[in-house]
């Protein structure tokens, strides 16, 4: 009971960044409380106090101290609860390699993906091309391995798998098919869902995220 009160996650169900944290916590078997933020319309005072710089989720509050930015949170969880299910490899080179790909995912996917459902014309076309290029690079990096680091589910998998729940939205607004463009990644995503309860229990249904994106577009005033 005292244990449970020590960890609080400020969360939003559709955020791929929050999903990363929930997957990491589940992998480690760590109990926690979570608060669903009304992120679009009404951020809580707790969120504003715990993340005054960015005012964004996820925020992990551990014994009252906030940790922000999903990649930083996942690394923190991996370091503190290092006795179980290590996410980052111990070899410094392999660690650097994993961090590079997680950084690539962070820098590129969300923003370019967002352009797919918020822009039109030339900007949309350029974003679509760039988005597919990013996924082709990730497909090449995965290759024929089961997971990005080889046989074990790890940091890069955690960073990328939440984006799978957005695939229906990306396909619809990007006008492409992931199965055609990156079959290995699609197989990898299904493998993560099948083999990892942390993933299957965390990822929302693809149509639900698609509905959410339609709702977002209405909020932004974007017409079909």
């Amino acid at each position, binding site marked *: 009971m005292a244990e449970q009160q020590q960890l609080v996650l400020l969360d939003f169900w559709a955020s791929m960044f929050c999903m990363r944290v929930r997957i990491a916590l589940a992998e480690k078997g760590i109990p926690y409380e979570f608060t669903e933020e009304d992120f679009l319309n009404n951020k809580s005072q707790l969120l504003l106090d715990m993340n005054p*710089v960015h005012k964004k989720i996820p925020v992990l509050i*551990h014994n009252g*101290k906030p*940790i*922000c*930015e999903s990649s*930083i*949170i996942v*690394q*923190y969880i991996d*370091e*503190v609860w290092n006795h179980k299910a290590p996410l980052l490899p111990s070899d*410094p*080179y392999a*660690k*650097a*390699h994993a*961090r*590079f790909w997680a*950084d*690539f995912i962070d820098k590129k996917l969300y923003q370019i993906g967002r352009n797919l459902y918020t822009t039109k014309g030339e900007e949309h076309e350029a974003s679509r091309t760039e988005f597919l290029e990013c996924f082709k*690079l990730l497909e090449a990096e995965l290759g024929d391995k089961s997971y990005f680091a080889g046989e074990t589910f790890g940091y890069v998998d955690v960073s990328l798998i939440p984006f799978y729940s957005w695939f229906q939205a990306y396909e619809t607004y990007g006008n492409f098919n992931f199965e055609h463009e990156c079959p290995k990644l699609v197989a990898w995503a299904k493998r993560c869902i099948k083999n990892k309860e942390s993933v299957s229990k965390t990822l929302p249904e693809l149509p639900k995220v698609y509905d959410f994106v339609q709702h977002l577009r209405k909020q932004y005033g974007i017409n079909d």
Partner: protein
Amino acid sequence: MGNESEIRLLGTAASPFVNRVQFALNLKSIKYEYIEEYLARKSELLLTSNPVHKKVPVLLHANKPPICESQIIIEYLDEIQPDLFQLLPSASLDRANCRFWAAYIDNKFFPLYEELRRTTKKAGQEAIKEQMIEATKLLEEAFVKSSNGKAYFGGDQVGYLDVVLGCFVRWIKHVDELNDFNTFDEVRVPELAKWAKNVSSHEALKSVTPGVETLVSFFGLLHIYKPPYQ
């Protein structure tokens, strides 16, 4: 550490991200071979070492594949040489805090200087300067909390954030001069101003800080490849 020629760094003298890695290598007394890249004509070595981003710095360590992205390189250096001049703190919460501010510096703070360089309209420039003032306020607070009354973010000794932010001081001064601004103003951000002087004069950074001709030349290149917004 072993053989000196084990580590090679691909870089360009004017790049603060490259200076950042050099600062770290110098602090850790790691000998390395430095290879200057001409970014207008990228070498085969650079393009094959960093095919994803095609950028410097790139660290080549012995026969291992290349490591890219300056913060990732520095964490790697910390891990292969944990006993000599540790840059990241040991406590997990402190590490998370360092990484948070490092991300802020690279993703929110420094891009303002590129924005300012490329913005020609007065109203736009003023808006960016306002954001810089806000950002330095946050960094001043972060410095005060982190330094605990000492000279550096890392305390008595240079630490991770000193390296991450310190490499930008010279570049920022150059952009400031071109834009009638003073980022590290002694009245507005007194502690950060003191820190900027301290870190710039640290031998490990001073020895790799580019001179004004190098910066002017590089800014000339940037003007062509990343010109001002229309």
